[in-house]
């Protein structure tokens, strides 16, 4: 009885669209009609397209750098915040702001920072003798910029996850390690990391899901350009549906992406179970 309202909402607004979308991926339809049935045709078609593989490649780059970049920055800050620093609570609050502020706002601001030759960062680069650096006009630089932007948005999440994880580590272990004469690096490598392995894997899974499904971060900063170099699978699916009006292939891309995502999540979940058993 208690779960009924949520169950109805979930079935109608989450499960129904997924099933309907799957049916759509089997048809050559438009936004307003289902169109003729083509079976697995759409899947075969996209797997043969270069744009799909290019988007898949960037999705991997974006996700890997997003997950590990934000994890490394977040963990480093969490470790730093564990030590005695004046105004400890204030830093924690201020550093969470990139996660709280709407992406549209931060994307606007990053546009101001890097997009035009009059922006502060290109000017700074010129003063440093790097010449005329166009962050969003060069394909490789644009990819790097988008990834850095993602890390900037996501590290607060990792910082919170890792702070909570570090707080739950039994401090007696550190004392024992100190008595045994372990160095700081050894303590971190042999004790801290294994002790926070479980929350680390959970945060990796969540961040992987966040990154693969992330639309606004990329779309608002580069729109997928230049020359489609920052087009991820989600962007490709969106553009296929809402700009080329090919719902079938668009949804098929999203489904293939989800399939890979589920496989990766399951593999990572297995890792968690292994860690828990040990």
């Amino acid at each position, binding site marked *: 009885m*208690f*779960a009924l309202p*949520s169950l109805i*909402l*979930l079935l*109608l*607004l*989450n*499960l*129904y*669209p*997924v099933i*309907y979308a799957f049916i*759509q991926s089997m048809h050559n339809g438009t936004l*307003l009609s289902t169109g003729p049935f083509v079976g697995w045709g759409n899947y075969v078609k996209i797997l043969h397209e270069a744009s799909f593989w290019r988007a898949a490649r960037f999705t991997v780059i974006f996700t890997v750098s997003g997950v590990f970049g934000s994890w490394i920055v977040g963990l480093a800050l969490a470790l*730093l915040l*564990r*030590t*005695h*620093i004046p105004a*400890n*609570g204030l*830093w924690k*609050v*201020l*550093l*969470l*702001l990139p996660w709280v*502020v*709407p*992406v*549209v*706002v931060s994307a*606007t*601001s990053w546009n101001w*920072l890097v997009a035009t030759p009059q922006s502060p960062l290109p000017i700074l680069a010129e003063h440093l003798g790097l010449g005329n650096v166009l962050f969003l006009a060069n394909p490789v630089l644009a990819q790097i910029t988008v990834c850095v932007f993602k890390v900037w948005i996501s590290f*607060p*999440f990792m910082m*919170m*996850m890792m702070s*909570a994880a*570090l*707080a739950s580590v039994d*401090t007696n272990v*550190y004392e024992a390690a*100190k008595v045994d004469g372990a160095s700081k690096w050894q303590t971190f490598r042999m004790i801290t990391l294994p002790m926070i392995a*479980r929350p680390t894997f*959970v945060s990796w899974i969540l961040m992987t899901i966040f990154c*693969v*499904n992330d*639309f606004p971060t990329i*779309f*608002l900063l580069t729109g997928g350009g230049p020359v489609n170099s920052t087009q991820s699978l989600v962007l490709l699916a969106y553009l296929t*549906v*809402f700009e080329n009006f090919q*719902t079938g292939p668009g949804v098929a891309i*999203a489904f293939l*992406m989800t399939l890979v*995502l*589920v496989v990766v999540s399951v593999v990572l979940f297995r890792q968690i179970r292994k860690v828990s058993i040990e």
Partner: protein
Amino acid sequence: MSTLSPSQAADAVIAPTGAQRRTSRGLRERGKWWRFVVMLIITAVVLVPLLAVVVLSLQPSLGSTSTGPFTFENFIEVFGQTSVLTWLKNSLLVTVVTVVIAVVVAAPAGYVLSRSRSKLVSGYSLILFVVQSLPVVTAIIPLFILFATVGLVDNLVGVTIIYVAATMSVAIWMMAAYYDSIPVALEEAAWVDGASLFGSFTRIVLRNSLPGILSTAIFSFLLAWNDYLIAVVFLRSNPNYTLPVGLESFFQQNATNWGLVMAVAVVMMLPPVILFAFLNKYFSVGGIGGSLAGR
């Protein structure tokens, strides 16, 4: 987060003993201030993009008669000349309704997830996870078709319904994770005294769950307030825009007039930042992961 004080715990371990104490305390003092400086620099660098928004919004624009170092004329112009006020009203409406419905629906559902241990319920929990990891793009197209037939495209009611659905699974998890921390013994005592299941839930469990409810509310608030993708697909005409779509379209049209653009950005940024400033101890991204890890 405020209940955790790892620094104190770590400190107790590092604390030196006996004769060493004086010298190493001096060293520690110095190390402390070094870390303060490092932290200050890191935070300043990280916050540059956000500070830039505020500073630019207060700069006099080109051709301005203002002579002071900063001015509010961008805000006056933006509120007078554009539809920012309408967008703000739309955003507030959509967000508040989403938060209220999400909490009202998730509170009882989370209770089931927390207290019941049947196969059916853990299956339900699994469905929640699978649904959550599906990309929004997949769900948007069928919903668009569905909503087009019932007139919910370009309609604030339509996006609100989607936001509620999108927050639901995480909201249920967050509530369940909080209920897990409330001992069942309290309810059992109430049942002995003749309270019904519903009575014990509202009078005992809910009454003790304010922090959990606040965390869930903040999560739904941020999701609805910050969303861009659903809004840009479903809201088609200017008077129906919420702030994210409004800001983006305004930015596309006035890309060089940064003062005005950033003034709109400040309007959009303020509500979540104010909320966060007052309620940050209930803001738990960790709670999401924690509840996921436990199940």
